[in-house]
């Protein structure tokens, strides 16, 4: 297929639908059908019925109209960009955009333009403010004319689409009786219109059906925290809005599931009378009622059999550390023991009072025993043992001055003395050098 060079200047090359005979035929038929009113035979639109065919065609037509409006919107936007580039980001909806463009025209000063009724007032404000600082230039006369024509076309198409949808809605009970039994004909028609036909609707999964009709973008500056997520046509339908607010999301999910099933029944024309739909509706209502019931009253739990479960004993480092506080101390151990043939000393002397056992004996001369650090305490490094980056083996106590003992200065190394006591494996009361456990200089 040769590349078609699209002439962007001419609208008709791009937007063709309105000129097709198909479009005109269908619109005429729709007008006639609207005038003729509801058909006399209430039920059973079979596939061969021309009215049914018309409705099916109307659905495809509404989709086509949507596409067409999109194309025209692009066209208008391209042309109007020279004048007011920011408008396309402020007003996304194609029909609203077309209306705004029509009202503004070639005007540079937006205070002279009245946008009431076309846009919500907040958006009007934003648009006015942006227009005052825009870097667009007024359009040439022919370009302006073409743009306004395109706007008119878009609005026309919108009108016809509305007409078609109204017609579909009025016939909805015959097209999809089950679906309209659950949701009502208006919502059902909207769903069908958005989905692009009954068969397209029936092919969608229920989660998508729930989302149909959700308004996507919110204008610049408005918070999206307050708006409900996923509130499409089904959420705003009567049956869901009739339930209490806390249950609405759940109800919407339930309704969309059942209505998808109903749509599938209708697409395959399983039940022309709509009984399935009515049954679904009742089921939905019953379920919503059940959700609102209070929970059953709680029975008091019977007590467990005494001594049936043995107590859970804990172990581990933490428990051992706690037990250390009440453990038998070394002092008490010594006091409890006695050596053979050596009488023990006692607190009141002469065998009266508490006995000291082996406590004061063995010639160490002291009644006290140093407590010693517990095995479980975290080791704290002594400050002077840390290395400050001493590079070599020189100890900090060396000096360049050389003193001999003759000269009468005695330098003692306190750390040497501490090393004597040092290792925890040797206990101190057997040592012959009576040692102090701490050596500290008293100033």
């Amino acid at each position, binding site marked *: 297929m040769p590349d078609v060079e699209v002439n962007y200047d001419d609208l008709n090359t791009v937007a063709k639908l309105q000129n097709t005979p198909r479009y005109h035929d269908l619109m005429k038929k729709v007008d006639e059908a609207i005038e003729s009113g509801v058909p006399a035979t209430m039920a059973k639109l079979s596939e061969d019925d021309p009215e049914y065919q018309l409705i099916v065609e109307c659905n495809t037509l509404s989709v086509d109209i949507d596409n067409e409006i999109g194309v025209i919107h692009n066209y208008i936007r391209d042309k109007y960009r020279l004048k007011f580039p920011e408008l396309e980001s402020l007003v996304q909806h194609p029909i609203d955009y077309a209306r705004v463009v029509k009202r503004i025209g070639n005007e540079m000063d937006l205070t002279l333009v009245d946008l009431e009724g076309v846009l919500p007032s907040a958006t009007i404000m934003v648009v006015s403010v942006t227009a005052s600082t825009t870097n667009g230039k007024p359009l040439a006369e022919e370009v302006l004319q073409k743009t306004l024509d395109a706007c008119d076309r878009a609005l026309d198409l919108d009108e016809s689409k509305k007409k078609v949808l109204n017609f579909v809605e009025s016939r909805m009970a015959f097209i999809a009786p089950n679906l309209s039994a659950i949701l009502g004909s208006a919502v059902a028609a909207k769903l069908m219109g958005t989905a692009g036909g009954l068969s397209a609707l029936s092919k969608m999964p229920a989660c998508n059906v729930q989302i149909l009709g959700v308004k996507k973008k919110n204008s610049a500056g408005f918070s999206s925290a307050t708006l409900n997520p996923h509130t499409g046509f089904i959420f705003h339908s009567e049956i869901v809005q009739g339930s209490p607010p806390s249950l609405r999301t759940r109800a919407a999910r339930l309704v969309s599931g059942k209505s998808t099933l109903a749509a599938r029944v209708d697409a395959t024309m399983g039940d022309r009378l709509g009984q399935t739909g009515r049954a679904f509706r009742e089921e939905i209502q019953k379920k919503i009622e059940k959700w609102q019931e209070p929970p059953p009253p709680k029975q*008091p739990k019977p007590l467990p059999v005494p*001594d049936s479960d043995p107590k859970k004993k804990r172990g581990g480092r933490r428990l051992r550390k706690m037990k250390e506080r009440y453990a038998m101390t070394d002092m008490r151990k010594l006091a409890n023991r006695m050596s053979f043939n050596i009488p023990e000393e006692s607190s009141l002397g002469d065998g009266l009072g508490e006995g000291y056992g082996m406590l004061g004996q063995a010639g160490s001369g002291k009644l006290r025993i140093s407590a010693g650090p517990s095995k479980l305490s975290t080791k704290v490094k002594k400050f002077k043992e840390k290395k400050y980056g001493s590079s070599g083996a020189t100890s900090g106590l060396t000096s360049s001055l050389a003193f001999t003992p003759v000269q009468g200065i005695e330098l003692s190394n306190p750390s040497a003395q501490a090393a004597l006591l040092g290792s925890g494996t040797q206990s101190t009361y057997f040592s012959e050098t009576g040692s102090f456990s701490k050596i500290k200089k008293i100033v």
Partner: protein
Amino acid sequence: MALLGLSTLTHKQDVDAMIRDTLDKVLVLRFGRATDPLCMQLDETLGKSSRELSKFASIALVDVDAQEIQVYLHYFDITLIPATVFFFNSQHMKMDSGTPDHTKWIGAFHSKQDFIDVVETIYKGAMRGKLIVNCPLPADRVPKFELLYKDI
């Protein structure tokens, strides 16, 4: 009494069956009259705790005015009402609560928790093989009575 969920026994074979068929659970038999106010107080305590103790105790009420039950009154020497007798696996369980009579409990309980404590003590003792247990309640919670000996 229907409200309490406790069954009342009036026939001897019912009582026999109850004692025989309660296995590995403490059986609490209250001997008394439904119309007596002290009995009613005791009955309410028993009824309220019956579901909580259902895993290791079962409770039944015995009507003291029935003809067939007089045998039991004679056997257990029940003169003051209400009297509660405890069984475990068809063994009669005694409890020393500081009163002269260890074979039964006379009167109502001060609170539901007291009754639960008593039943739990009896269960623990019985599971260890004891036939007489010490009452866990302090002396002021035990109702005092005077033992009538031959109507003196």
